[in-house]
């Protein structure tokens, strides 16, 4: 049994559905007068962030605090890392402080995996290099189930039925953009496929990973054709910092071929939703009108981030410290 959440591929279908169901119940806590549960009282969660992040870090922090865990925020800037401390030494420091869980974001793919050898607490990957970002995939899956479950493409009667136990069987998801560098795309492909969705990735040929054939998804290059048969379209951020590497000629050309504007959105089926993991480049991969439309779930994704991360923290830390026999 795994103790850590490093890759969305570590999750079995049952695990994933359990997380979504737990999040479903925890969502109501956000709407109450007292947004706090005593469940993780006395446990310490360390947010170890070697890369900038607002959304993910604050979301993990809010999730841990709502479950009454103590949170220590540790960012590389302004810490001993700036003085050249290695990840291992930092890990040993955290270990000495008694971290029950470490939430790590690191620019190097595989850093969280390495960290599991050095700390006795549980490790949660909050994004490592171009590898994975499993909690983002979980909150995306949660958002998809929330918007399309109990109606629409999941088939059941309309309205808000009981979503518990439901996976995403048959939902058609198209992930568009810089797939090559996107950890969000990798985690989503793995998780959504596990949950039974049919995933297609669409990217300029230069931004399509070599090994995409080995992924549990289809690859396509024609966005318009894919949009017509999508229930969900997930736009990835164009990583502006990589523009100089000449993956595509100009922003304008990228926008014309792979950007989602109002006329492209019209190609989508009636019920389809538009997702974006944020932060967005309005006017590049997604037009402002699209981002602000009813179909966009971008704000819901942020809100769901807290509940999904609460579910992950509860399921990883809320039970017995050592796995039962």
């Amino acid at each position: 049994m795994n103790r850590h959440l490093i890759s969305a591929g570590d999750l079995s279908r049952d695990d994933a559905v359990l997380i979504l169901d737990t999040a479903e119940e925890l969502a109501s806590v956000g709407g109450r007068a007292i947004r706090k549960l005593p469940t993780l009282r006395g446990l310490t969660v360390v947010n170890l962030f070697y890369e900038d992040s607002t959304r993910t870090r604050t979301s993990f922090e809010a999730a841990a605090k709502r479950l009454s865990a103590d949170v220590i925020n540790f960012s590389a800037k302004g810490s001993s890392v700036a003085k050249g401390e290695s990840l291992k030494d930092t890990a040993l420091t955290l270990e000495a402080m008694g971290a029950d869980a470490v939430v790590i974001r690191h620019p190097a793919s595989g850093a969280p995996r390495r960290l599991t050898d050095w700390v006795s607490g549980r490790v949660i990957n909050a994004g490592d290099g171009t590898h994975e970002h499993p909690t983002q995939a979980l909150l995306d899956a949660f958002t998809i189930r929330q918007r399309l479950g109990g109606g629409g493409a999941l088939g059941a009667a309309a309205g808000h039925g009981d979503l518990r136990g439901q996976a995403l069987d048959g939902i058609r998801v198209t992930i568009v953009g810089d797939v090559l560098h996107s950890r969000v795309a990798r985690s989503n492909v793995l998780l959504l496929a596990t949950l039974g969705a049919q995933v297609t990735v669409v990217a300029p040929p230069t931004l399509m990973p070599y090994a995409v054939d080995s992924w549990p998804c289809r690859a396509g290059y024609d966005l318009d054709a894919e949009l017509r048969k999508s229930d969900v379209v997930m736009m990835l951020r164009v990583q502006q910092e990589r523009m100089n590497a000449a993956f595509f000629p100009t922003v304008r050309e990228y926008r014309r071929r792979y950007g989602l504007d109002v006329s492209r959105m019209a190609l989508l089926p009636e019920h389809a939703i538009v997702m974006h993991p944020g932060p967005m480049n309005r006017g590049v991969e997604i037009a402002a009108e699209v981002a602000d439309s009813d179909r966009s779930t971008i704000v819901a994704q942020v809100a769901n981030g807290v509940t999904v991360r609460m579910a992950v923290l509860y399921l990883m830390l809320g039970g017995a410290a050592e796995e039962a026999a």
Partner: protein
Amino acid sequence: MCAMRPEPGHEPGAGSAGEKGIFPRQATPRQEDPGPSGRQGAASASVWDQPGWKAVLTPDEIRRALTRIAHEILERTHGGAGVVLLGIPTRGVYLARRLAARIAEFEGTPAPVGSLDVTLHRDDLRLRPARALQRTQVPPGGVDGTTVVLVDDVLFSGRTIRAALDALNDLGRPRSVQLAVLVDRGHRELPIRADYVGKNLPTAYREKVRVQLTEIDGADSVLLGEPAREGEEDR
């Protein structure tokens, strides 16, 4: 607390196959009443195939007990004004609904029903793997200023009810809180007692009480048994 134990087999992308999972899982969240020992649910389904369970309440007796409790609630609350019934999942919720139906029938005033999951407030969370959450549903009017009647199937150690009181505290401030249970089996570990009891059932500590309800088990019954020790995780 936790020994360092890096696990093999979570290579990234190692796939979704097989038995492994990040989270340990209980078979069923709640069987009978809690208690530090009471129900380490894992044995749930198989327990039923074992002999040694005997029925202590028949469907008719359950029906009459609930009818009496409904009358008692109406009596004690002067007609049921301001009463909110909150069932504790799983079976307490069905009992709460049945009580509400009777109250509506006897007095013509529908009593709001909801459910209150206490998992996140339990004091024994760390003793076993993380458990799936059940639904918490508070009636639209909320609980502020109402008389909340908590409804559960079996009252044993009292720890579930303590957790329920804490959970309720986060939802609002009822004017008063009462407790209705179908079976009180004794062995309290906390200063808690029920206001309405379907049946007082003297039991030995290691015996198990199991309530079955038509809504989920197909038939009404209360059973008392002493499952084989083998395979039990208790203590």
